[in-house]
């Protein structure tokens, strides 16, 4: 999972995302704290943008974990609620659960926290489209104008 997912995605690698745990339909990734990812230098708290990337990556990974065969997927939408301020100098862990997969769409819920799942800093829900025509190849599906879905 580490090499196939995190290592293959340049931006996940740039954020040093690390696999914490996984099981069918579930994935947990950690975003290590780093000074260059801080959003407000007065509080030292990580920027919401890198939390968005962490949650998007974890939710997408949970979808991949739920599929019987490797498929290309794309995020349709992702909602993130910041329920509590994040703390400085602490890594953020995201737990994602892909709770339903239909033929073309996967549904995911996620929460981000500092290690205590009962006290999340963000909760999230997202939907993903699942491409079922890998035989035609990624490039053919993408179309000439860069459409992803």
């Amino acid at each position, binding site marked *: 999972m580490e090499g196939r997912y995190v290592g*293959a*995605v*340049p*931006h*996940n*690698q*740039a954020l040093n995302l690390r696999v914490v745990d996984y099981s069918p339909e579930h994935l947990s990734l950690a975003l290590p704290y780093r*000074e*260059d*990812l*801080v*959003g*407000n*230098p*007065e509080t030292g708290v*990580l*920027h*919401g*943008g*890198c939390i*968005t*990337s*962490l*949650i*998007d*990556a974890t939710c997408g990974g949970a979808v991949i974990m739920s599929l019987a065969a490797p498929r290309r997927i*794309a*995020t*349709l*939408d*992702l*909602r*993130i*609620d*910041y329920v509590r*301020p994040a703390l400085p100098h602490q890594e953020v862990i995201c737990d994602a659960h892909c709770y339903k997969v239909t033929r073309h769409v996967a549904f995911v819920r996620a929460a981000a926290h500092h290690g205590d799942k009962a006290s999340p800093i963000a909760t999230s829900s997202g939907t993903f489209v699942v491409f079922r025509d890998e035989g035609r190849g*990624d*490039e053919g599906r*993408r179309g000439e*104008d*860069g*459409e*992803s*879905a």
Partner: protein
Amino acid sequence: MSLRDAVTAVRETGDFTAIQEAIPYSRFMGITAELVDGDVIGRMRYSDHLVGNASVPALHGGTLGALMESTAIFKLLWHGETTTVPKTINITVEYLRGARPEDVFARAEFTRHGRRVANVRVFAYQDDPERPAAVATAHFLLVQE
């Protein structure tokens, strides 16, 4: 320069470089803003580490969310009455089409700019503003909790 001083400097000069310099994550992401015809336009300069899918290739969806959240905050700071940094209450990102490995721009609209809360719609695009790669709806808290 502190973020507070940077915000004041931007209000005086209209040059967002000071804010980008004051926010480490903005530097890491190559996210900045500029005034175009009086409106705040966000920009994320392309860099290889922003890619999400190297085989397509396409930018990571999270980076588009980051640009749109940042652009909304830049515009709120530009128009706001205080130097308090708006806090994101929530953000919903809809992905419409893949973003090519090139610069991305973003434009924000205030759906409602209240005293406590701002409702903001943001559009991220590459060459054509009428064909956004992603759109976001976000709420920001403008007062200290």
